[in-house]
């Protein structure tokens, strides 16, 4: 994620001098930092701090989990602090939190494990003040891996919960 985010920031032609690690940026809750750093803000693009693209790439849309675990890591909590701050600012968005598992495990158990992971994220965001009715959860178990090798390098990235932004609340 970090690498991807950096590449995208470079492509966007932003003055990166003020920008450090994107995940730290999210963690600091400095959601508006990049747009203010200079250059035109293209609405909806990654340099628009109110955009889903910004949320996905700069705040970080996902957290990772240890094998067969659903408790949040300290790194994960930093990302979620950023997500919570952003969601509290950008109140038009709702989100579906997708829980995923790696391929080591039986199908049904992995659906249940993904449900636990998605719920860990939801509960954390709610504890930070995000309204529960903006956050739904779904588990894909091991059905939607993003990495396809069969070793820990890939498994670690597949054991994830992804906060997928959706359109605004009605009304």
């Amino acid at each position, binding site marked *: 994620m970090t690498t991807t985010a950096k590449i995208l920031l470079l492509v966007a032609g932003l003055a990166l001098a003020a920008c450090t690690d994107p995940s730290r940026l999210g963690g600091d809750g400095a959601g508006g930092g990049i747009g203010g750093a200079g250059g035109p803000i293209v609405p909806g693009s990654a340099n628009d701090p109110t955009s889903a693209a910004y949320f996905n790439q700069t705040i970080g849309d996902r957290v990772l989990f240890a094998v067969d675990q659903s408790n949040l890591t300290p790194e994960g909590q930093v990302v979620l602090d950023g997500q919570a701050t952003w969601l509290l600012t950008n109140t038009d968005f709702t989100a579906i939190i997708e829980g995923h598992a790696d391929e080591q495990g*039986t199908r049904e*158990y992995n659906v249940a494990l993904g*449900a636990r992971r998605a*719920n860990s994220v*939801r509960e954390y965001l709610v504890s930070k003040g995000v309204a529960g009715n903006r956050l739904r959860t779904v588990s894909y178990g091991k059905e939607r891996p993003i990495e396809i090798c*069969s070793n820990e390098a890939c498994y670690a990235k597949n054991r994830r919960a992804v906060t997928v932004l959706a359109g605004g609340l009605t009304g």
Partner: protein
Amino acid sequence: MRLLGMMLVAALGLTAMPVSQAQAQSDGPLRIEITEGVIEPLPFALPIFEAETGDAGGLAAQISQVVSADLSGTGLFREIPANAFISNISSFAAPVQYADWKAINAQALITGAVAVQGGQLNVKFRLYDVFSGAEMGSGLQFTGTTDGWRRMAHKVADAVYSRITGEGGYFDSRVVYVSETGGKDARQKRLAIMDYDGANVQYLTDSSAIVLAPRFSPNGDRVLYTSYETGFPRIYVLNVGSVQRRELESQDGTMSFAPRFAPDGQNIVFSLSQGGNTDIWAMNIAGGGATRLTSTPSIETAPSFSPDGSQIVFESDRSGSQQLYIMPAGGGEAQRISFGPGRYGTPVWSPRGDLIAFTKQNSGRFHIGVMRTDGSEERLLTASFLDEGPTWAPNGRVIMFTRETQGEGGRSSLYSVDISGRNLRPISTPDGGSDPSWSPLQN
């Protein structure tokens, strides 16, 4: 055999009747006891069935081939090649020259005749115990449409298997499974149904949404499965004949999956996830609300009824890792039955009631295994990078399951294995396959 003959008459336009007068069943030595020891497959001769009408030759050859493949595929029988035959069967009615079949060590001889009239097909067969020099059971004949020729072949093979092993057959059965295409990170899944041997594949859904774990109803007319077509996992029931499907009622904000029918075909058990916690629930398929059967903060899933409907086996990680438990069908105190090293999941009660098949993970390997219902006599039948999701053949003697290969090119396919651990066989499907569910024997 008479009884079987009468049962076969019942449905699908197939009719069965004795070929000639009933004959006392031989108590000869032609018998396979299916035990755990190493079995030398029983050699049989199956001369191509006689074509009784001019245009029956092609079907006679195809039917003979399917009967042979069914029997050989069990690992319990071995076909003697036709070029070893000393005599041939000139006519279905002619007396058998036992000495000629004994000489090539054919212990069983199967003869048959096929007639086609209009769209109607008539298949007759006789089974001979060569070393006793006697017919085993009486001949049977099946009548149906020519389209159903494979089923008639399977029925012949079921009758032969049944007479020689004393067990129920399983060849005239179907399997519903998830057909898979695309790479691991772009997998497309849809429900498919096929004959037990991989023939006659038909697709029941499209691949627009993920579908998981179809399960046959007790009489094979419907399938329960999980689909993400609403964006969330929900349970559907699909009528196999009409391919009409219906979403079962569910509570908003929850996920439901891992459904399975009760033996009554009306009630189901399934898993429901709510607030991150997964428990087992039961409901009537017609609707009217669900009943919660477990209430723990742990994961409870993969429920499966005992054949008498009185108990449910399921998996839970309440002890800290996935293990198998049995509870009364209405919920209540559960007894843990798995105690070996590793994790146990996806338990399925055998149709005979005597065994529970499961998936076991231990030391980075996956296994399909069986144990008695009290957890004793655990036996692992397979081992690979990823084996999971057993389903029972209607006679409780064979298990089909999913095997997925390792790495970037990982692909799922279906395999079957005898409960003795012998005769591991891939089932050929047009694309990848997973989550098989074996139907009961068809009527």
